[in-house]
């Protein structure tokens, strides 16, 4: 039974009842409810337990400021740690409280209240230091127990992230925001209007105000209708602007997109101008036991009766230091709630406020010094500020208002500065840092008329349009005398500053006593303001408490930094469609499909390419597969897909001298038809890439790079050409995806290419090693290049991607009589290690140079200068000990050395003298062989060195880093 539901009124649809469950019990609510309003309608008061002390808590707010009731949604709505006040009720929803087990009524963790006095601020930091926080953290986290992440992706729908652009982004669809959007829309601007609530109106939904002589919500409806009719206006509700980043880039989390298959959407909006109409948030008062279920913000109670037609209680005591609570009290009274008294801490109550109070007794100069009832408010003790005349008033609800704080969160995120305003007793926006304007309550303009005016003005000024005629609005006025805490004699008990994180006045005092006297330090030491609510109701009270204790003005204490998100956002919304198969990007070649169809085990290689690791067959072991593929290349013929290699066509008069500058060796002397292997260095002398340059014609060259470094090399070349040599005539065109290649390698490679049919002469005389020729292979236009990355006779057959799959299939067909095997990257790795060929990332690790690798010949002496030359020379002059590339043969040939293992002198636990860069089972030597970087390795051939593992050593003999065909006869054959 919705016993607390009013018979009429409110923004709910009584024709659409919704069933839901909370902590296992079934309830009913209406469409238009939040979970919080539905719980209150059902008279559920004890809804949560606190984070640290497990104190009983109820619903305290009505929106994102809610500090107490966090819930975990279950089933298809699965979502953790949501403020009950921001959860739109849906049929079949199931929720439960966090922080308690098994329920908030019977919470076993509540035993910690008994020790509460022993858990002051910083307790964990001080107590759980030895031997380390990590030992204690899991148990403590479990006890504190926020909800866990959902264990499955959403079942009905997905997330989306999308870009948007606007001339004017209006944040908030209250009176100021609607007015701003209207003026901007009429001026023809592209407007993006986003508001966090389910419907437009902002604070007008919560209150009973008039615009243009009628109910304010009529004006809202008319305005929304006009905005909807404008094609240049995008208007979103249930959409929170949660981040304001540099260059007017803002993020909007839309939770009810029109597209039903989308659960949440994250807009990334780039705006010309931003209008911040974010309203204001009521703050609480700080008095003993101000966290009991039934203690509620006055504005929240007002919202529950007006917007949700729910009486949050039957009899209220109101406690305030400002005028706004009077209207709340009057609205409650009009809805049938008994308002026992208004305790106002001010000595004099302004006349217009007393007028609003009417028959409600007003107790000026009074404060609440205590609350009766643990699980539900039963009464409030009210006394004078000096503690005299204390009396207890029976009530089931204590409504409090400490004043209004402009919601400056986004303004502050945008790096705008804040100013403490004495008359409003709060921080207001000061200097903007980006193209944005705060309007309405967000700017401290707390009356309805000024909200409408400032909203219109801001846009009129920005767009250079005329001010429209403004509608009349109900007059209000606002006055406040700050009260940062109740310290009347007799006020005993915990007075909370941050309800969610259980931070009390005493905790802040302790932090100050212990020397944490900067507001940012107080925040971190006490965790005040670090909860899901980010201290929306309590932060300024912390600042006020510090100011009082230190005897300085609030302006000097300052506010802590506001950071995104303004309210919690699902990670899924931020990621958008990037889940499952597209979490990471991937690249395919035209042969990828074939590889998958032929059972290849796929790896992710450099630059996001998916490549076959190996092609298992039957019940082979991994090693048997790799050995078979290696033997095919060494003894017969294999083929691999070399398409991912980076390729760039260079054109121009100065390409030769440019290549001489970027490569260590001389390239300009190549004749058309020739190619040469070379190193590119960075200016600090480290190896950037190894690759092959080919001269295609007088002014045309092709540079091929390693797969992983294609983009890096492209950027390197372009940067040099555009910033250092702008006058040189060199044009670079990326052709990585214009040329695919199948590389046929092994002693029978020539026979296979011949059998494919080609008009290119394949003999060693016609097409020797490191030459290329253009023509046809298998009837397809092709370029055949004689390079070798396996040490065998190789023909790299390059074709356009449109022909690649056909070429590949023809090779596999034609190769059958020759026993051809497709070769994966595992076998390629073995083949190159047997030859002692380098691999970037293995032997080339960002410390070695060409000399260390035994490739000093690649460092041209003829050239006066090239990128990296000066630095390598400088480093080599230092005579420091270098780690040099060697081959290693484990003394026991059946022992494999883990790649990356350190070498230490004698295998002792001493600083390493090198590391193993690769270790493979060699099919030609029938044993494990390894490559390593070893201190002074070149002069240590024949020595036995030791690999140091955790509990063992492996002895290995040092040799030349080449295990097969040291003269390279096979690849030149």
């Amino acid at each position, binding site marked *: 039974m919705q016993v607390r539901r009013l018979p009429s009124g409110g923004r709910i649809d009584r024709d659409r009842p919704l069933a839901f469950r909370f902590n296992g019990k079934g309830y009913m609510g209406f469409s238009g409810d939040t979970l919080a309003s539905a719980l209150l309608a059902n008279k559920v008061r004890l809804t949560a337990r606190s984070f640290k002390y497990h104190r009983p808590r109820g619903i305290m707010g009505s929106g994102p400021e809610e500090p107490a009731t966090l819930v975990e949604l279950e089933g298809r709505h699965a979502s953790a740690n949501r403020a009950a006040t921001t959860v739109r009720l849906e049929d079949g929803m199931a929720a439960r409280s966090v922080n308690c087990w098994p329920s908030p009524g019977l919470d076993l963790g509540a035993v910690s209240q008994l020790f509460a006095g022993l858990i002051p601020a910083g307790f964990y930091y001080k107590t759980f230091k030895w031997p380390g926080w990590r030992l204690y953290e899991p148990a403590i986290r479990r006890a504190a127990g926020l909800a866990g992440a959902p264990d499955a992706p959403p079942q009905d729908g997905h997330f989306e992230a999308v*870009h948007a652009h606007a001339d004017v982004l209006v944040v908030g669809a209250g009176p100021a925001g609607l007015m701003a959007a209207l003026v901007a829309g009429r001026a023809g601007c592209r407007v993006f209007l986003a508001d966090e609530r389910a419907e437009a109106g902002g604070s007008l939904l919560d209150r009973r105000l008039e615009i243009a002589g009628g109910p304010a919500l009529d004006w809202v409806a008319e305005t929304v209708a006009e905005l909807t009719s404008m094609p240049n206006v995008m208007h979103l509700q249930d959409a929170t602007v949660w981040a304001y*980043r*540099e*260059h*007017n*880039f803002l993020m909007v989390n839309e939770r009810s997109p029109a597209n039903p298959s989308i659960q949440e959407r994250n807009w*990334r909006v*780039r705006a010309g101008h931003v209008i911040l109409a974010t309203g204001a948030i009521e703050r609480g008062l700080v008095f003993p036991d101000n966290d009991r279920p039934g203690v509620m913000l006055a504005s929240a109670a007002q919202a529950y009766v007006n917007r949700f037609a729910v009486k949050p209680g039957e009899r209220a005591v109101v406690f305030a230091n400002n005028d706004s609570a009077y209207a709340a009290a009057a609205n409650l009274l009009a809805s049938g709630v008994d308002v026992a008294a208004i305790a106002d801490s001010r000595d004099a109550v302004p006349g217009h406020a007393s007028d609003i109070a009417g028959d409600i007794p007003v107790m000026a100069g009074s404060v609440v010094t205590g609350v009766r009832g643990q699980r539900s408010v039963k009464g409030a003790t009210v006394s004078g500020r000096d503690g005299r005349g204390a009396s207890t008033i029976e009530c089931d609800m204590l409504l409090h208002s400490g004043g209004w704080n402009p919601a400056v969160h986004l303004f502050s995120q945008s*790096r705008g500065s804040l100013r403490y305003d004495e008359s409003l007793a709060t921080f207001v926006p000061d200097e903007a*840092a980006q193209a944005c304007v705060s309007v309405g309550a967000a700017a401290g303009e707390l009356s309805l008329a000024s909200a409408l005016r400032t909203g219109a003005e801001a846009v009129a000024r920005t767009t250079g349009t005329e001010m429209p005629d403004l509608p009349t609005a109900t007059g209000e006025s606002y006055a406040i005398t700050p009260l940062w805490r109740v310290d009347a004699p007799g006020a005993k008990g915990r007075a909370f500053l941050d309800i969610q994180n259980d931070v009390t006045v005493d905790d802040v005092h302790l932090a100050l006593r212990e020397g944490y006297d900067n507001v940012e330090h107080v925040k971190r030491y006490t965790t005040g303001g670090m909860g899901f609510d980010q201290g929306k109701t309590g932060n300024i009270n912390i600042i006020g408490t510090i100011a009082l204790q230190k005897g300085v003005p609030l302006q000097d204490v300052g506010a802590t930094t506001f950071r995104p998100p303004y309210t919690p956002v699902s990670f899924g919304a931020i990621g958008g469609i990037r889940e499952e198969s597209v979490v990471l990007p991937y690249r395919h070649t035209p042969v990828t499909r074939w590889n998958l169809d032929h059972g290849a085990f796929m790896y992710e290689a450099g630059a996001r390419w998916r490549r076959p690791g190996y092609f298992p067959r039957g019940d082979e072991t991994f090693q048997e597969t790799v050995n078979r593929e290696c033997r095919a290349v060494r003894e017969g013929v294999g083929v691999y897909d070399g398409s991912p290699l980076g390729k760039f066509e260079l054109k121009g008069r100065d390409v030769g001298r440019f290549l001489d500058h970027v490569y260590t060796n001389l390239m300009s002397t190549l004749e058309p038809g020739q190619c040469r292997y070379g190193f590119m260095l960075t*200016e*600090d002398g480290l190896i950037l890439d190894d690759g092959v340059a080919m001269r295609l014609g007088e002014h045309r060259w092709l540079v091929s790079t390693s797969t992983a470094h294609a*983009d890096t090399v*492209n*950027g390197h070349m*372009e*940067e040099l050409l*555009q*910033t*250092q040599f702008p006058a040189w005539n060199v044009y670079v065109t990326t052709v990585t995806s214009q040329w695919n290649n199948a590389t046929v390698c092994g002693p029978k490679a020539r026979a296979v290419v011949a059998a494919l049919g080609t008009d290119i002469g394949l003999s060693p005389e016609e097409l020797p090693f490191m030459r290329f020729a253009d023509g046809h292979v298998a009837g397809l236009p092709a370029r055949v290049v004689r390079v070798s990355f396996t040490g065998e006779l190789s023909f790299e057959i390059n074709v356009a991607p449109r022909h690649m799959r056909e070429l590949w299939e023809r090779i596999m067909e034609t190769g059958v009589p020759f026993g051809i095997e497709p070769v994966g990257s595992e076998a390629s790795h073995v083949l190159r290690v047997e030859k002692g060929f380098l691999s970037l990332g293995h032997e080339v690790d960002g410390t070695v140079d060409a000399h260390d690798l035994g490739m000093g010949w690649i460092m041209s002496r003829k050239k*006066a*200068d090239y990128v990296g*030359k*000066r*630095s390598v020379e*400088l480093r080599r002059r230092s005579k420091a000990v270098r780690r040099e590339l060697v081959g290693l043969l484990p003394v026991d040939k059946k022992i494999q050395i883990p790649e990356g293992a350190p070498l230490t002198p004698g295998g002792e636990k001493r600083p390493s003298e090198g590391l193993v860069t690769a270790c493979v089972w060699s099919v030609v030597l029938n044993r494990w062989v390894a490559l390593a970087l070893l201190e002074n390795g070149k002069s240590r051939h024949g020595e036995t060195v030791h690999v140091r593992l955790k509990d063992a050593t492996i002895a290995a003999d040092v040799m030349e880093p080449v295990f097969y065909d040291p003269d390279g006869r096979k690849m030149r054959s």
Partner: protein
Amino acid sequence: MMLIPCPFCGHRNESEFAYGGPVKPDRPEPHETGDEDWVEWLTTVPNPLGPVEERWWHVKGCGTWLTIWRDTRTHEIVEGPGDAG
């Protein structure tokens, strides 16, 4: 997410660019530069609190290597000392 002015394309999202680092002085003539000066040029990168001149590569756009002055405190793109007037 910054909005970076590209001389060819106009203002574009930062995600279209690759960061190229602060602009160093011109590369000195290697053989006319002492070891210390070379190392200084190589390893000392401007890192001011405030405007810094830096390069960005419009790699996903038109391919231009461009130079901007960015205030490291605010991400604001500002006029460099040479741009005034």
